[in-house]
């Protein structure tokens, strides 16, 4: 009996000791709310960067890198407003033909050199001459250096949109050392900027590592306003950031589930429920995400005929297309005609009556009026971007249903971009865009006759002239509405709608920009590391 009691006592004591040492492990850890420094932030991206030259690409994947390492004279905040960054301010003269920009002092590049006016002038000139979106500064006449920390930009005519051009994250006008500006476009392999992180190491298809820049200018002179998207006070909380190209979406998802990545971009929208219901995972829906579109060839083929272009526009059921893109998840898309997202001050639905008509009978009437005789329509899409591929599939079927003789050609992206330059080789191509931040930025794509599709009209060109020079918001908005309506009438660029991107992250990661535009992980810290 005594032996039995001893046994029970020892067992209870052992159990008690076990609980003392293990219960804290099994119970929920209380993580203090507050900033935390240290660690390596691991971000799974959708693939390898095609270039490390910010001026040479419009691809979103390239722009994922640059907010970490580089800055421009301005930056966009979460409301898409321009805020000075490396510029202290910007002041136009009376007619906005000359802009004076005082620069921040004591800003160091990653190579230790201080940023001065010569670097800024060289960067602007390189961008204005060679970047893929250089058309935005086509009226720039010259850049003059006033002193080491002041420059002036001279334009051939009034140019009201300079702050937006200096701030846009798409093909950003980042400031680099003068020596690096002498590199041929597309041939920068180790970018040097002024950002909170600097380039450390890259092995293509494996990783791109960034490390904290300990001489970042905002450590000593922080901006007074807190971080808001790309603008404001930026802090490098983690020691390093690793961008890990993981092209296979299932692998990205598995890696997130296994806590190998902290943040993962572009997950299938069908995984939203799983992310939400998993204790340690957190989904974020990026709104706005992408804007699928298509362009009709106004220069060659059957769509020189505006009645046939109208037939295409009224035939399309945008709801069906967006459902295909988002796997039927209605919460991941919205029907909207605006060439700006609803979150932006420039949004307008002035052409809602011409959007998503989805009337096959009306389409047939326009086809008859246009004298369509069964000519083959070459519709180009690509599998390189899933949403473009799905758009092409659904559009092809919808147009076939109304009687168009559609030949759907799937090319890889480089082939598609080459072929679309030749008006003899296609009739419709599918594409997409992320954000335009100002109506003036649409000038390359619609109305000026530059971009494949060759949308051109004197009325739209007139709109751009005003948009480029007018500073009054109400007048600019009026021009934007005219532009958008004219575009809808012309039926060269046809917008499908808006769809949203699903990202995922671990709950232990504090990312203030989780649901914001593009892919931002600035000012992110790791609160809790999972083992």
């Amino acid at each position, binding site marked *: 009996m005594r032996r039995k009691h001893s046994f029970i006592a020892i067992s209870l004591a052992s159990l008690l000791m076990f609980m003392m040492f293990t219960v804290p492990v099994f119970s929920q850890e209380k993580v203090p709310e507050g900033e935390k420094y240290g660690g390596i932030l691991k971000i799974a991206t959708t693939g390898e960067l095609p270039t490390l030259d910010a001026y040479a690409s419009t691809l979103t994947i390239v722009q994922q890198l640059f907010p970490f390492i580089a800055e421009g004279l301005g930056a966009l905040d979460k409301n898409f407003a321009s805020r000075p960054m490396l510029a202290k301010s910007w002041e136009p003269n009376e007619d906005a033909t000359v802009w004076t920009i005082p620069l921040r002092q004591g800003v160091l590049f990653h190579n230790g050199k201080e940023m001065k006016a010569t670097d800024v002038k060289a960067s602007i000139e390189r961008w204005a001459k060679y970047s893929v979106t250089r058309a935005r500064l086509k009226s720039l006449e010259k850049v003059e250096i006033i002193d080491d920390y002041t420059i002036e930009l001279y334009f051939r005519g009034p140019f009201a949109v300079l702050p937006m051009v200096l701030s846009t994250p798409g093909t950003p006008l980042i400031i680099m050392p003068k020596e690096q500006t002498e590199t041929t476009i597309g041939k920068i392999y180790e970018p040097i900027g002024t950002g909170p992180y600097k380039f450390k190491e890259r092995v293509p*298809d494996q990783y791109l590592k960034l490390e904290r820049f300990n001489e970042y200018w905002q450590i000593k002179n922080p901006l007074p306003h807190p971080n808001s998207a790309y603008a404001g006070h930026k802090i490098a909380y983690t020691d390093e950031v690793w961008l890990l190209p993981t*092209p296979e979406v*299932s692998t990205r998802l598995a890696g997130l589930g*296994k806590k*190998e990545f902290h943040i993962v971009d572009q997950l299938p929208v069908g995984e939203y429920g799983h992310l939400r219901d998993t204790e340690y995972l957190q989904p974020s829906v990026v709104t706005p995400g992408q804007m699928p579109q298509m362009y009709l060839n106004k220069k060659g083929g059957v769509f020189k005929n505006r009645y046939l272009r109208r037939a295409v526009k009224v035939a399309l059921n945008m709801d069906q297309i967006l459902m295909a893109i988002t796997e039927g998840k209605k919460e991941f898309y919205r029907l909207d005609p605006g060439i700006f997202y609803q979150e932006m001050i420039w949004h307008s639905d002035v052409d809602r009556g011409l959007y998503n008509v989805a009337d096959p009978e009306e389409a047939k009437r326009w086809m008859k009026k246009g004298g369509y005789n069964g000519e083959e329509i070459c519709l180009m899409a690509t599998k390189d971007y899933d949403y473009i591929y799905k758009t092409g599939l659904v559009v092809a079927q919808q147009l076939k249903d109304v009687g168009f003789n559609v030949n759907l050609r799937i090319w890889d992206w480089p082939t598609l971009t080459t072929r679309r330059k030749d008006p003899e080789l296609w009739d419709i191509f599918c594409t997409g865009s992320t954000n335009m931040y100002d109506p003036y930025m649409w000038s390359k794509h619609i109305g000026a006759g530059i971009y494949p599709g060759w949308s051109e009209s004197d009325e739209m060109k007139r709109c751009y002239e005003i948009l480029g020079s007018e500073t009054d918001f109400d007048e600019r908005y009026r021009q934007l509405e005219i532009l958008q309506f004219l575009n809808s009438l012309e039926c060269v660029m046809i917008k499908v709608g808006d769809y949203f991107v699903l990202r995922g992250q671990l709950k232990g990661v504090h990312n203030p920009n989780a649901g914001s535009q593009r892919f931002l992980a600035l000012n992110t810290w790791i609160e809790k590391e999972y083992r």
Partner: protein
Amino acid sequence: MLNYIIRRILLAIPTLIIVGLIVFFLTCVVPGDPVTTMVGDVPLDVIKTIRSEWGLDQPLYVQFPKWFFSMIRGNLGISTSTGMPVKELLLQRMPLTISLAILTIIVGIIIAIPLGVISAYRQNTIIDSMSVILAVFWLSVPSFLLGFILILLFSVYLGWFPTSGYVPLSSGFIPYIKHIILPVLALGAAQSAQIVRMTRTSMLEVLRENYIQTARAKGLKERVVILKHALRNALIPVVTVIGVALAILLGGIITIEVVFSLPGMGRLLITAVQRRDYPVIQGIVIWISFAYILINLIVDLLYAKINPKITYS
């Protein structure tokens, strides 16, 4: 034998020339311009400058000999998308691709040859039936699908292995094995299935031969009859299959590399094609050709080793 080896090496040269010619001209006629693919819609004068820097403005009959003689001297050019020497890029990828290929073949051999032998020896038994069914099954399952299943089971649910990525051997044996084992299993399944089938078929043929009956009649142990007399004679076609498999693996398996995010030759090739990075495409194809030539030579030499009746004079 030495003469034979030298002759084969010399014969490899015209083979490489022809392969080089074909790949060079094929990459030039594929649609998509490498310059605009890399730098986008830049001014025409910039495009002309870059094309001139890359030698793309010269006629093909000038470009090809320049490229070929550089290649012979070991200079494969510069990658247009990364700016790195192509040789350096290939050398970066080779450890992973070679180790993946070799480990896959080793796993395949370890599983498949014993199983093939047993299956043939025990023909029409349950072991034989199971091995045939399994072989057909593993041959039918795409390796990338198997890869997903392995990730789900061993990485996500069991947590034994990482889901993706690669750690070189120099960073530690355990991390290296942990990262490479799942891709090896995913690839090894199909390879072992092929080897099993070939081993079984070959063994069945050999086991029917008179000399096997003679060996048994002489009183030799069954193990000696099977392993020394039968297997050795059955190995010729098996070695051929292994050689072909190894050569294919050395070219990189794109699907597995994408699934497991491995920085191997396959991914390098597909990225180079997407970016129209001609020097890299040409470099990889030459490497694959070289691998095939080398493997074929080794296989031929192994024939002579396995079967003394085969001689090369």
